């Protein structure tokens, strides 16, 4: 009997770790994966709630999230490839064209 809060706390922890990963790392790939990690943490929370309330809709939602994550990963990686071609680097600090 694992209380549901444990799952939720775990999901929160994974989310926080993912957030840390986004802002710490300079490698774009790792940054991207940390984002995926956050997505998964949210999924875990949804599954937990769905179990708690005894509805399957959460599972459907997670299914859709997977699909979207896949699409996003594809496009994101394509962007990274283009960026790499342009800049010969995936160091996030080198991409400061937004500067004044």
């Amino acid at each position: 009997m694992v209380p549901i809060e444990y799952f939720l706390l775990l999901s929160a922890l994974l989310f926080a770790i993912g957030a840390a990963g986004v802002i710490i790392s300079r490698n774009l790939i790792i940054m991207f994966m940390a984002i995926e990690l956050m997505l998964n943490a949210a999924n875990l929370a949804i599954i937990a709630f769905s179990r708690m309330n005894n509805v399957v809709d959460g599972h459907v939602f997670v299914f859709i999230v997977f699909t979207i994550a896949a699409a996003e990963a594809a496009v994101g990686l394509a962007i990274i490839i283009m960026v790499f071609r342009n800049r010969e680097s995936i160091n996030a600090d080198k991409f400061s064209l937004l500067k004044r």
Partner: protein
Amino acid sequence: MLDLLIFYFAAVFAVGGAIMMIMQRNPVASVLYMVVSLVAQAILYVQLSALFVGALLIIIYTGAILVLFLFVIMLLNLRGEHFGDKQSNMGRTSKIILSLILFVEFAALFKQIGFADRVGTQAVDVAEDFGSVEMVASHLFREYLYPFELTSILLLVAIVGAVIMARKDKTDREREEA
């Protein structure tokens, strides 16, 4: 009792994998640690009677998406180079503290909502086939048909976009032919 043990076991691997993932220099190692974390999460899914989704996690997420990551890493020949200066420790620590604050806030939020008094912890009995393929599929193709079709269009758009963007453009082609 067993449940708890399994939970802790999987949780340790999930969190550990995640932490190791963000601290690697080598992106390939990063991806592999991510795989570890995701497999542990799949175990947790199964513990929550999400059999279909758990399987999906392994097949699609680790099997396709992370492999895609690996492909890209190898394509671009990234190994661990390209980074010169070290990050300041102060900066890193402060960012870790920030995310810890985030976690604490979530925890406080949960405390405030107070799940303990609600019914429906693990104690609730679910049906035999809760979370099975039939259950999920029947919901997917009945109530949620519309979003389902839309996501397929979304996938199409993503594919087209990715292909166009990742294609070698003229200048690259000229550079290659030269």
